[in-house]
């Protein structure tokens, strides 16, 4: 069902944990399946993501995408991090089964939510960042397109 990369990230999640006094924390939940993801960002004065951690309540795909997403944003600038889409995360994991595509949205949204929190705390505006929904509800694949 899952690729080897997914299994690897599931078994050995990178960056799992919390950051105390993080620069930004984002929590998002998927109303459809009830899963929850939380991302902690440590952003330095130059706007570089120095460290990142996650906690996830969700399926194997959710855990693996959190892990992969944190790897992908680590060391990146805010603008670079914003460009990381769920698609890019999925590709980095060698794909997900169709019913699991929505799980990867959690990761993208959680990063955005954490950045939003960082911006609010610091009273800045991050170009291109919209206020995150805390409900990922795309309905993208529940009905198969026969």
């Amino acid at each position: 069902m899952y690729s080897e990369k997914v299994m690897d990230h599931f078994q050995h999640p990178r960056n799992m944990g919390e950051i105390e006094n993080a620069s930004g924390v984002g929590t998002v939940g998927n109303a459809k399946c009830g899963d929850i993801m939380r991302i902690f960002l440590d952003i330095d004065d130059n706007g570089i993501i120095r460290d990142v951690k996650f906690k996830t309540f969700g399926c194997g795909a959710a855990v693996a995408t959190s892990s992969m997403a944190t790897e992908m944003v680590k060391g990146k600038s805010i603008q670079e991090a914003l460009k990381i889409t769920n698609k890019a995360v999925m590709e980095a994991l060698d794909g997900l089964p169709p019913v699991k595509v929505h799980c990867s949205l959690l990761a993208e949204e959680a990063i955005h939510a954490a950045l939003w929190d960082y911006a609010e705390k610091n009273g800045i505006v991050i170009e291109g960042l919209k206020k995150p929904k805390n409900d990922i509800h795309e309905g993208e694949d529940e009905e198969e397109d026969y």
Partner: protein
Amino acid sequence: MKQLIYLDNAATTAARPEVVEAMLPYFSEKYGNPSSVYSLAQESKEAVDAARAAIAEALHAKPEEIYFTAGGSEADNWALVASAEAYEKKGRHIITTKIEHHAVLHTCQYLESRGFEVTYLDVDENGVVDLEELKQAIRPDTILISIMFANNEIGTIEPVEEIGKIAKAHGIPFHTDAVQAFGQVPIDVDALGIDMLSASGHKLNGPKGIGFLYIRRGIKIKSFIHGGAQERKRRAGTENVTGIVGFGKAVEIAVSTMEERTSYERRLRDHLIQRVLSEVPHSRLNGHPSDRLPANANFCFRFIEGESLLMMLDMKGICGSSGSACTSGSLDPSHVLLAIGLPHEIAHGSLRLTLNESNTMEEMDYVVDSIKEIVAQLREMSPLYADFVKKNK
């Protein structure tokens, strides 16, 4: 590879070697079509009849009341759709429960789209239907009561005998989905007042792709699969001879070994439950504490999600299942766990372990140890657990 500990016997079972052996001659030697005239075909026909007789005996039914299908789902669909069609002049109201298998629930939804009305009975916190509610739900236009014998997730056994009495008192046919119960608990369709009963071969160490619907003589029901004159003209299609033969053998063995086998399984299962509940914090047992299938255990572990738990158990060589959204085709958490009153996030962290006679006490201990370790690990990862710990500090 390490030795597998298979604890998902409610999902499917391994076919017994005796079952496969019984089937083998009917693939390439005695392969005749039971409907044909010549002697080769008569051998197939006799084998089918023998299996039918064995199954009938197991239920205290008559052989001509057993109609083979492709499995439990077809039997459920048939029972519901075709009784609805047969009794539609009398009324269009059907009673079932909120915890039925999807083969019943989705068929009810289909019937609703065809203008039938369905009452879905609630269950209590143990998953037991309320007989008073059932009585109150009965109307003059009620044409069918369909209530499962035992639930596939939480293992609760329903008060079938009482339901049968109520149905009989009102002259309403009573169908029961016994896919999980058949072969695990004694069933006597006469004593229990059952008019129709669904079962499936692969749940009791028989082959996949074969099941039956028991239809009491006198019950009006239409065909569901139309065509040839097989199964007394009620279910068309060339008989799955090997499947039927294997099913018959599996039933024979399941029934003759039932007492000893299930008391062994129950002992293992109870040990497992007792250790999990006492050693894993924030865990609960789902389903009735005593009126439950002998080999079923179903737990909720707060703050963790079912699929991750299953995947980590798999890495330890343990096969289980979960009512979790993430493992089923749909994204909703188990309708059964919601029906017994669990909130969404708890319903997500369920684990069903269903044993068989080849399991051992050592395996149970290894499983409990593994669960303890994995649950702790997953909680470490869970934002819900972090919140909980913070709140209770």
